Structures are given as structure tokens and as C-alpha cells.
């Protein structure tokens, strides 16, 4: 079984907020009116935390933590938010009754309610992503680890419609979960090539006919991160890039005291 997780290296994060924008574009996040934005009704699945602490300011990108033990799932009265087998906590928009219990229960404040019908300025509506549903007023939404991209990968692996480098990486694996884990890891390593924490063992020709759109199997924030600070992958596989990062001495998770077992791992800034 895979267990998708994310590692965010704060040393590499430049706080540019490319991930914030990429997420909004990818997931059809409504922009809404300016008045609503000022009144605390802004939706941002990925947002940048800015907190003054002793000795400076901490900035960290904050997606949903996809907790292993998610309080939001525990309190939902109708099972509208649920945890998939691969550990992703996601949301059934047509099931949600909008009671907002989950927003109250989440210690990280990553859940957003649709106070009005979704709206976008100008011609935004012409560029909505067809793979992601648009949410009606009155339901809660949040980061899904771009679950539609992961599902597309599953589909493409089964139809064989993947780049040769990825195809080679998944060839030896028997079950689909393992294949996806390997494929994502291969793509991830490709994305962060030449970063000091990875040995780049792949010969260059493997990627000769590689189309960079293939990297779009990775979550939108990961794909767009300018500092390559966000790493995505399978936490179950000890060899994956994200597991290697999670074992780092600098690794920490937010608010462990709540016992939520978050799957987003931060790497402290080196001092």
C-alpha cells in the first residue's frame, strides 16, 4: 500500500507563493469578491504561514497535513470527508452538508467553506480545470494532494500511456500501488535533479523523449515550486525521496501534541 506524503524543505523555500497560485489555478479555487476576501472568506488550499517567533519570522507553505489520524474525518456526521486507502484525506463535495464541524476540528485550519456560489473575475471561468469539480455554495473544501493527478497516473500506467523513463521504473513492480509509488518517485527525482540530497543515477538518455508535461502527474504545488522545496512521494517506501527527507535530522511535523500524525513533514531551516 502506498502512503502519500510530502516533505517541505524550509531551507529551499523562498516564500514566493508560486505553490499558492498554482494550487488555486489547478483546483478551480473560487476567487470571490474583494469584500468577501477581506472578511475572511478567502479560500487558499495552499497558503503561506507567516508567524513571528523569537529571533525572526517563520514562513512555511501550508497544505492539508493529510493526517494519519485525522480529527476532521472523525467528526464528520455523514462521512463526506474520508481517508482513502493511500492515506489521502479527501472530500466528497456532493455528500457534505456544510456543518463545518471539520473546520472546527482541524488543528491546522486548512479547511475552507464556500460562503457563496463560486465566482471568478474576468475570463477566469474559461480556464477552469475540467478534471476538478467546481464546488457549490455551502460545502467545505480543502487540499486533496491533487488526487485527480494521482488518479490520472493510475489510469495512464494501466493503459501504458507513460514516458519511457517512467515505464522502465515501474516495469519490475507487480501491483499497481507499487508502480505508482515508483513512478511518482522517478518523476520527483527528475524534478529535483542536481539537488544535493539526491544522487542522480538516471542516465540522461532515459529522458530524451521526455515531455515536461509528464511532470504534471505530481501535485500542482510540487510541480510549480521554484526552489524545489516541496517533495512528494510514498512514505511507505523507505527508498523514496520523500522518505529520505523524512529521516533527516531537520525533520519535524506541526503540532504533534494533537496526535494527528500529519503526513506533511517540514525540514527546519539550518542555522
Amino acid at each position, binding site marked *: *500500500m502506498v502512503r502519500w506524503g510530502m516533505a517541505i524543505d524550509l531551507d529551499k523555500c523562498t516564500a514566493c*507563493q508560486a505553490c*499558492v497560485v498554482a494550487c488555486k489555478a489547478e483546483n478551480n479555487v473560487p476567487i470571490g469578491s474583494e469584500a468577501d*476576501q*477581506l*472578511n*475572511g*472568506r*478567502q479560500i*487558499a488550499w495552499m*497558503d*503561506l*504561514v*507567516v*508567524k513571528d517567533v523569537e529571533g525572526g519570522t517563520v514562513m512555511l507553505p*501550508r497544505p492539508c497535513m493529510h493526517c*494519519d*489520524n*485525522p*480529527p476532521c*474525518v*472523525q*467528526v*464528520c*456526521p*455523514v*462521512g463526506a470527508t*474520508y*481517508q*482513502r*486507502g493511500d*492515506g489521502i484525506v479527501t472530500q*466528497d463535495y456532493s*455528500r*457534505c*452538508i*456544510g*456543518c*463545518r*464541524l471539520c*473546520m*472546527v*476540528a*482541524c*488543528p*491546522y*485550519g486548512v479547511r*475552507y*467553506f*464556500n*460562503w*457563496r*456560489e463560486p465566482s471568478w473575475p474576468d475570463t477566469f471561468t474559461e480556464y477552469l480545470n475540467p478534471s476538478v469539480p467546481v464546488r457549490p*455554495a*455551502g*460545502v*467545505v473544501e480543502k487540499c486533496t494532494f491533487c488526487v485527480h493527478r494521482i488518479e490520472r497516473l493510475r489510469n495512464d500506467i494501466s493503459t501504458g500511456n507513460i514516458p519511457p523513463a517512467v515505464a522502465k521504473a515501474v516495469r519490475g513492480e507487480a501491483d499497481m500501488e507499487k508502480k505508482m509509488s515508483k513512478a511518482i518517485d522517478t518523476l520527483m527525482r527528475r524534478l529535483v535533479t542536481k539537488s544535493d540530497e539526491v544522487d542522480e543515477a538516471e542516465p540522461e538518455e532515459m529522458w530524451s523523449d521526455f515531455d515536461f508535461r509528464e511532470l504534471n502527474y505530481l501535485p500542482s504545488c510540487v510541480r510549480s515550486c521554484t526552489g524545489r522545496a516541496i517533495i512528494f512521494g510514498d512514505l511507505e517506501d523507505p527508498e523514496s525521496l520523500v522518505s529520505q527527507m523524512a529521516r533527516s535530522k531537520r525533520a519535524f511535523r*506541526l*503540532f504533534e501534541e*494533537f496526535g494527528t500524525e500529519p503526513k506533511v513533514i517540514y525540514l527546519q531551516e539550518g542555522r
Partner: protein
Amino acid sequence: MSEQREKYYTTGVFSGTTFLTLGVLLTIIGLAVYSWLQQLSIGLGVTGLNRPAVWGIYMANFVFFISISMSGTFISAVMRLLNLEWGKPITRVAEVITVASLVMAALNILFDVGQPFRALIYIPLFGRIQSPVGWDVIVLLFYLLTSLGYLHISLIPDAAVLSERETRLSWLYRLLRYDWSGAEHQVHLLESALKILAVVTIPIAVMMHTVTGWIFGGMKAVPTWNDALFGPYFIIGALLSGLSLIIITAAVIRERYRLQEIMSEKAFTNLGKILVVFLLGYLYFFLAENFTVRYAAAAEDFHVSEFLWTGPYSPFTWYILVSLVVPSIVLLIPSLRSYRTVVAMAGVVLPAMWVKRVLIVVPGLLNQTRLPTVQGPVADYAPTHVELLLTAGSFAGLALVLLLFTKLFPTFPVWEIFGHTKTREEPASRISLRAVFTGWMSGISVSSAFVFAWAVATLTLGEKAATSYSVKLMPTSVEVLVTPELVTSSMINLLSVVVLAGILAILLVREG
């Protein structure tokens, strides 16, 4: 004697003042309905709710209405069980308040959710026993069921008397009288039925308020909410606000219906004594709550406390404190404890208890800003006219139910004060009293058996779908859409079983 009791059976008299009151109430309700339609068509954006203040005065209203529902059946059950003569005249008022306020509480939840129509369908269809909402819906149904049964059964003798006079509504009274003829065995049955229901009601009422407290106590993420105190705190708060409302309503009815002989001043001073006990109890909990937070709390909780005592919400907190302390002092002095002061003090306590409910809900949420983000707002909450109108509408609804009820039925159980009499005519109905009572009891017991079975099934089978975290018997890893039939449809089954059991019992047990 008999003339005297006759006059309490005058029903359906609508004076000018009544029409005026009715008009005012209906106007408020009309405005509330309009606001609700507005909210339904635009979304909750028309309210002042935002993030992090995701719950506002709708939730506070819900808690408040639940808490005043404590008054009724619980207090009247205690009075019946202890056989307090002076308390009997107010039991009916109390029971009506319970039923009406439970309905208003349920309505306020519907105002609060983003998709009320889905809520009505999906909670019965996909309800999960792990969610605080699940517990609340279950207990609310039970409480409504027992309270309605209780009110219904205690009405029967009065309905029988009413059915024998010529009014436009005699068909209604005839329907509600069943085969009541005032015979010895029926009186005995009625009184045991009331006792049994009273005993059943008390634990349900206690659980109702505990579970409402646990909605908050079970949220570990919000500062000051994750507190073991919430269950008992809500119970004592419910007793306090419930009793205050009973006192006020009983006083209004006493004045309007000239019941000075029935509801004696003594009854009110006695209620005042009970009120002061609840007040002191509440103040004790208030102290306990603040002690831990002020003396030894985590930084976050302390921050909320500062927010409440010296920050933007301090006027409310001090207002509550004064409105709890002043009535306690006034009511503790025996020479001041008269009918007038008791009613006035209840009037001081009740609004303060509503404000307290707002202060339970809002400040904790406003201070839940552990991770301040770039796009996160400045935490602030102010209710809009929609929320205020819907709040006013719910209170008007409660008043309307009370008004109509007192116009239709005697405002106190006449038979309990003046004793039973044999009715003049033989009853025409074929549904026996026994059948009615069996109906209520089987409804209650069958549904509790069902809920119990459902809970056990969830625990042992492991709720495959919506992942049972409360009870971690299974790894948390299966998707929601493969939920076993048993768990998904349990709530809808529960509802139908309750209804069916009641109907079947009446049909089976009826005589002839």
C-alpha cells in the same frame, strides 16, 4: 369547586391583546422566513460568519434552545416524582417549552448548515455514530419523543373534559381523549405511565445536555474547548436557563389568565429557592473554569481568557458575571424573595445565559489562529441582520407555540390540581389509553434497542467506510463508498422503526 374548575376549561378565547401579540409574532416570523429564503438562495455569505469564526449565533441559539429544553420535561419529571404539590401547576408550561424549544434548536441547526436539505436527507441516510452530530441527533430525537409522549399523556384527562363541550375544536379534543372515561383503572394507568416516562426522561435529558457540551468538549483544536468540564457545565447551565424561562413564562401566564389562586406566590418563592441553588452551582462552575485557565492554563487558553476578561469581549463577560451575582445575592436574602423579585431575577438571568452561550462559541474560534497565513483574515465576527432576524424569529416561534397552546388547552394540568372526575359521556374512541401508552413506550424502547445495535455493529464490524477513529479496531483505510448497508442506512431505519413501532403498537393493542 366544580364551577371553579369549569372556568379553567375556557379555551379558544382570543382577545384584542392576543391578536396584537399574534400579529407581532407573525410579523417577526415572516421577516425571519424572508431572511432564511435569502440565506438559502445566496448562501451563508449573507451572515457574518467567516474563517476562523465558522460558528456564530446560530450555534449559540442551538445550545441555548437545547438548554432551555432542560427546563421542561426534566423539571416537571422531578416535580412529579417528588410529588411536589406546589410545582404541579407549572408542569404543563414546562413540558410545552421543552417540545417547542427542541424544535427551535433543530431549526437553528438547519440555519447553520450550508446545505440544509442535504442535512435532512443525508444525516438519516449516512449518519455516523462517531460524530458529535450523530449523538446529538439521536438524543434529540429521543428527548423529543419522550417529551411529546409525556405532554401528550398528561393532556388526556383535560382533553376528555374539553371534548364534552360544544366548541369548534371538539373533534380535536375527542381525538386526543382516546377512551378516557376517568375510571379507577385508567387513572391508575395514567399515573403509572407518567411516572415511567418521568423516570425514562431524566437520563435522556442529562445525556442531551452532556452530548451538546461534548460537541465543544470533543474539539481538541479550539483553545478552551477541549475541557472535561463541558458536560456537567452544560447541565447546570441548562437547569439555570430552563428554570428562568419557566419562571418567566409561568408569571406571564399567571397574569394573563388570572391564575393567582392556582400558581401561588409560594410556588414562585420556592422556584426562586431552586433558582438560587442553580445560580450558585453555575457560579461555582464559572469559577472552576476560570481558575484553571487563569492559574495554570496553556498559553492559548490564557489568551482566550484575556480576550474575554480584558479584551474586546470583556463587556459581555462582566455583564454575565454581574447578572449571575446580583440575582444570587437578591435571592439569598429571605426578605427579598418575593414573587416579583423572583420573576425579575429570572428575567435578569435568562438574557445573560444567552450571551454566555455566544461567549462559549465565538471567542475560542476567534482565537484559533495557530497558523496565521498570508491570506488569513483579521479574526472578527459580527452577526448580520439575517442572523439577528432568524434569532428573533426562533424566539418568536417559541412564543407562538406557547401562545397557541395556551389558547387550545388548559395552561396547567387541571386534573392534577382538582382531582379526577368521571366523564359524562362514554368515550367513542376505540383506541385505548393502554394502547397509546404502549405506543410511546415501544417507540422509545425499540429505537433505543436499534441505536444500541447500531453502535455495537459499528464497533465490532468496524465501520469499514467512514473510518472509525473513535474506536480504532480497524486500520483506517477503506473508502467511504463501500460502506456496509447496515451502517449507512441505520439512521433512516431508526426513524422508520420508531414510527412503525408506535403505529403497530396502537393498532395491535386497541380493543375490539
